[in-house]
């Protein structure tokens, strides 16, 4: 935006050190990750939260709390090695079934992935409860529909998932590169038309109301 020098001086941003304090205060105050955009909106005009965040992250290296990146947002989290001090704060994680854990991993590593693809990988149909539970925990959400016949919905993991597992992004999933290199994340169609693993005709089409809203 064109501004003359007078207008510029009116909107001069605070010094970087001050911006760092601001980012620090906002991140400390929030229990959930704060996006850069959110920081921009809250901080005075002309601030550069990105640079301030980088400084802040360095400042907290090796400390009792860390500045961590979660997707396109940032949060302060306690250092994992100090977890033993927090019995009081530990929240009993909801016990996930083996099916739910596997389904979650498949969604994380194969996203965006359709229900039929999950079933193909697990060799068994995915119960509605499993998907519902993961949706309810806000670890997965609906992605874009796939541009294949029937335009099935896909599932992807959420920022909450990344936050929970301390991942900066889905690209940082453990072993992702190796799995990809080994071709294990491919959606390889079976030779011929022989279905494996009791693959019933697409359930999505039987129950379209499940995931559409």
């Amino acid at each position, binding site marked *: 935006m064109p501004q003359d020098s007078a207008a510029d001086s009116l909107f001069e941003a605070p010094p970087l050190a001050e911006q760092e304090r601001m980012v620090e205060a906002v991140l*400390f*105050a*929030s*229990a*959930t990750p704060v996006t850069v955009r959110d920081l921009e909106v809250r901080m005075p005009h002309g601030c550069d939260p990105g640079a301030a965040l980088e400084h802040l992250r360095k400042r907290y290296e090796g400390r009792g709390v860390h500045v961590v990146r979660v997707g396109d947002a940032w*949060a*302060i*989290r*306690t*250092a*994992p090695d100090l*977890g033993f001090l*927090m019995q009081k*704060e*530990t*929240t009993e*994680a909801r016990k996930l079934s*083996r*099916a739910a*854990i*596997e389904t*979650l*991993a*498949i969604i*994380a*590593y194969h996203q965006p992935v359709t229900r039929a693809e999950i079933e193909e*990988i*697990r*060799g*068994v*149909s995915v119960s509605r409860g499993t998907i519902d539970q993961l949706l309810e925990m806000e670890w997965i959400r609906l992605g874009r529909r796939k541009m294949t016949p029937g335009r099935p919905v896909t599932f992807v993991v959420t920022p909450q998932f990344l*936050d*929970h*597992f*301390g*991942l900066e992004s889905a690209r940082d*999933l*453990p*072993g992702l590169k190796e*799995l990809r290199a*080994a071709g*294990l994340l491919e959606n*390889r169609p*079976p*030779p*011929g038309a*022989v279905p*494996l*693993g*009791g693959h019933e005709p697409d359930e999505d089409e039987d129950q379209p109301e499940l995931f559409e809203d």
Partner: protein
Amino acid sequence: MAENLFEEQDTSVAERLAAEALIVDVEGFEGPLDLLLTLSRTQKVDLRQISVLELARQYLVFVEKAKELRIELAADYLVMAAWLAFLKSRLLLPPEPGDEGPSGDELAAHLAFQLERLQAMRDAAARLMGRDRLGRDFFARGEAENMTRISTVQYSASLLDLMQGYARIRTRDDFRPFVLDRESVFTMEEALERMRGLLGFTGGWTDILSYLPDGWHSDPVKRRSATAATFAAALQLAKEGKLEVRQTDTFAPIQLRSLEEDS
């Protein structure tokens, strides 16, 4: 050697336990692929080097046993059994000439891929669940500060609003009754009246400005109004044939002469 012996013994014990477990607890399996994966563990080899033929044999034995024990097997287990029986025959018999479809080796390779992929996903899931986790190993802010919500009203106006607003005022000005400005406006009617009275007393050419009323000379606004009104009145009177108007040059003084005297 001794170690090997032990290991083999261990394996056979594990195998027996597994076999029992399979029969007793078929419900515990997450489908035929899961069962195949469990069976493949008894081969103790890399999944890429697995003997699919051997696996098919084991699976079929399992299904037979389950039948003997009258365990209800889900349909997909039976579908898999049928498919594995087909695969087994494909792998054992040389392909018939003109045979359509994928070869036994292709099918076996795909099954091996599926098993490897499922195993990979299980390992990935285990690694994922073994990560430091929020609320267990690392923690968020315990005492999150609440955002106080401040609702502010932001008034907006566009340049068009501003221009229209000003135009509205100026337009209104056009409509403003003259009464408002009467003190500084000399109307043509007033000028006509004044000139009719004065014309008879003037002889020869006189400057139009001398017809301006007293007190209307100094104030520029008043002078302008009076000049305009007097000029308009002069034109009116000229039209009526009561006077003549002349101007010797551009911007030269305008002079009037009465015609009434002569007539």
